[in-house]
C-alpha cells in the first residue's frame, strides 16, 4: 500500500465563475477531504492561483492533477510535497483588551511568537501570526488560557522551490494560435 502524505496542489487558471465548483467536485467525486483551500491572484494578470492541501497517495495526486488539468479553464496544475514548497498560513486572534494591559505575560507571548498586533480597540485587540501550522497551533495553546474571543486561520499559501513556467506556456499559446 502506497502511503498517504500531505500534498499541495497548485492550480493556475482563468478567473472564471464556476471553476471552483468544478475543481472541488473532482475531490468530492473521489471522496477526498480538502484540508485547506486558498484562491488568489497570481504573478500573471488575470490568472488565478489555487492552493489546495490534501492528504493522499502520490498516485492519487498524479491522477487528480490530470483530472484538474482537463478542465477547460485550467492552464496548468502541479502537486508538491511539503519539502518541495515554501508555505505559510496566517491566523487572527481576537482577545479582550483589558488582558493586554493587565496581563504582562500576553505581551511576552506576542513578542516571542513573532506575531503582531493588528489593531487595538477599547474592547478587544487582534493579533496576527503568520507561519507554519504548528507555530500557529503553539500560539493558540499559549493564548487559550486567557480566553480567545475569536480565532481564524487562512488556507495554506505556498510557492514551489522549482520553477513553475506558466508565463512561458502562455507565451507559447499566443505563438501557436
Amino acid at each position, binding site marked *: 500500500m502506497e502511503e498517504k502524505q500531505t500534498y499541495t496542489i497548485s492550480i493556475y*487558471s*482563468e*478567473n*472564471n*465563475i*464556476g471553476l471552483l*465548483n*468544478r475543481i472541488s*467536485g473532482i475531490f468530492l*467525486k473521489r471522496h477526498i477531504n480538502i484540508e485547506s483551500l486558498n484562491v488568489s491572484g497570481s504573478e500573471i494578470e*488575470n*490568472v488565478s492561483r489555487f492552493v489546495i492541501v490534501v492528504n493522499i497517495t502520490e498516485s492519487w495526486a*498524479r*491522477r487528480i492533477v*490530470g*483530472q484538474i*488539468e*482537463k478542465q*477547460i*479553464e*485550467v*492552464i496548468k496544475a502541479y502537486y508538491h510535497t511539503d519539502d518541495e514548497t515554501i508555505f505559510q498560513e496566517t491566523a487572527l486572534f481576537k482577545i479582550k483588551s483589558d488582558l493586554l494591559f493587565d496581563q504582562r505575560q500576553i505581551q511576552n507571548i506576542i513578542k516571542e511568537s513573532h506575531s503582531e498586533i493588528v489593531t487595538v480597540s477599547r474592547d478587544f485587540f487582534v493579533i496576527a501570526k503568520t507561519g507554519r501550522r504548528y507555530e500557529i497551533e503553539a500560539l493558540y495553546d499559549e493564548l487559550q488560557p486567557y480566553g480567545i474571543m475569536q480565532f481564524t486561520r487562512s488556507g495554506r499559501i505556498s510557492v514551489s522551490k522549482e520553477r513553475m513556467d506558466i508565463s512561458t506556456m*502562455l507565451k507559447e*499559446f*499566443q505563438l*501557436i*494560435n
Partner: protein
Amino acid sequence: METKTLTQKQEKKETTMRISGAEAVIHCLLAEGVDLVYGYPGGAIMPIYDELYKFQDKLHHVLTRHEQGATHAAQGYARVSGKVGVAMATSGPGATNLVTGIADAQIDSTPMVCITGQVASHLLGSDAFQETDIVGISTPVTKWNHQITSASEIPEVMAKAFYIARSGRPGPVLIDITKNAQFEEFDFSYEKCTGIRSYNSKPEIEKSKVEQAADLINKAKKPFIVWGQGIILGQAEEELKQLIEKAGIPAASTLLGLSALDSDHEFNTGMVGMHGNYGPNVLTNECDVLIALGMRFDDRVTGDLSTYAKQAKVVHFEIDPAEIDKNVKTEVAILGNVKESLQRVLPLIDNNKHEAWHGEFKKRYAIEFDEVIKNDLHPEKEGLTMGEVIDQINKASEHKAVIVTDVGQHQMIACRYAKFNKTKSNITSGGLGTMGFALPAAIGAKMGDPEREVVAVIGDGGYQMTIQELGTIFQTGAAVKIVVLNNDFLGMVRQWQQLFFDRRYASTELVNPDFVKIAEGYHIKAKRVSKREDLQGAVQEMMASEEAYFLEVKVEKEDNVFPMIPTGSSVSDVRLS
C-alpha cells in the same frame, strides 16, 4: 468571463447587426453548421423557440416527447453524422431532464451542445418558478458549461461551446441563457473559436515516443491490438487497418469501437470486455505487447486490474492526457490524435505475419463457437434466442445497417453478433449503460444519415423507459426499425440474480402491455413473432419497409449471455457457461 478577450482565439468576421439574444442564438447555430436541433419548449426558452419558428426553413427543430429523448436523439445524430448534436430545453424540469443524456454523452465522449433557458437574471437564486441551478447540477457531467446573463456574451460563449464540444476528446457542453439575455438587443457579430489558451485540444506528438512504440511493435512476438471509439472519433479507421495488416496483428474492439474495422476482416478477433469474445479476453493475458488505440481501459474491459495484461508491455495511443496511466501502467504512451500518431508510426513498422499467434485466437474461437455461439445462432431448443434474431438482421441488412442498442442482455448479444462493414454503425450507451437510450438515439441516427438503414434493438424493460418517443417517430416520419426482444424480464439483472443471488428474482419480472397495439396506436406498422419459422420473413418484411416498423420478438425468458467475466474477476477467467 472576465478574461475572455485574452483567452479565446477567434476567426474575425466583421459584420454586425442589432438583434435579440434569442435571434443571436439561431445565427450562432447556423454559423456552426447546425441544421437540426432536438428539444422541448417552455416558458424560459420561449424567445428562442419563437426565433426557431421564424427560421424553420434553415434550422429544423424536432420536438421529442421528453427532454431525455432530445439528448439521446442528439447523441445518436452526433455518433452517426460525426457532427455536434444539439438539444434544447426550458429551465427547471426541462433542464434536469437533460441530465441523463448529458452524463451519457460525457462518459462516451459524444460531442453535444445543450442550450437551456433560465429565469431572468434578477430572479436568479430566488427559487423563482422553474429555477434550478443547472450549471451546478451539470458541472460534473459536462466537458464545460456556462451561464449567460447578458445577450452580448452569446456569440463568444456559443463559439467556445462548439469548439470545446467537438475538439480534443469530444464531449457535452451546456449553455444556460437567462430570459432577459434572450430578449435583450445588441450588436451581433460572430467569430468562430479556434483555440483557448488554457485548453490544448491537439497535444504535440513526441517523435521519440513514436519511435519507441514502433520499436516495441516490431520486436513483439505476440502483439495484440485493442481499439476503442477513439479510432472512430479521430477518423483513424484506415490507419488502424493499415497497422493491423502491415504488422500482422490480431485486433479486438471495445464495445464503443465496434464497426471501425469490418467485422469479417480476417484479423478482427471480436470484442473484449465483460461479455466480449473468449479469445481476445483470454489472450490479453498472454500477449507480449498490448497496443491500446483510442480506448481508456474501462473496468468492464479490464476486469481485475491487478491481473490485467501484467506480462505485456503496454503502448497507449490516447488524446486525453488524464487517461494515460490512469488504470493501466504503460511502457510507452503517445499523447495526441490517434490518426496522426498512427500516420507517424506506420512508416516505421515492419511487415510481419505472426501466424502461430493468430492460430491461438482461432483455437479459442473454435471453443467459443462450440460452447456458446452455435447455441446462440443456431439453437436446437424450441424458444427463440436473441442471437438468431441478430443473425437474421445481419442477413437482411447485408451488414450495412446502423445498429442502435439499448442496455441489457440484448445489447451484449447484438454487439457480439451484429456484423458491420461500415464505420459509425454501432450506437450504444457504453459508459453509463443508460436504459431508454436506444429508441430516441435511433431517431437521431436516422436523421444523422437518412440514407442508411437504422435498426434499434431494445429490451422490453428499456423500451418502456422512453417508449413515448414513438410519438416523435410518428410525427417526424423517421423510418427507424424497432426490434424489441421481449423476455418478460429485466433480463440482464435477472441473469445476475440467477448467477450471484441464488435465483432470487427480486423485481425483475415484467408484466408487459400489448406492444404491437401501442405501436399501432402511434400509426406505426407492427408485428409480433414468437415462432422460429416466422422470424426470417418478419425481419425481411421489416427491413423492406419504407417507413418506421415495429417488430416484437418473443424470446426465451431465461437465456443468459456468455462468455462472461464476473465483476472483479480476471479477463482470463472468462466463463463460457
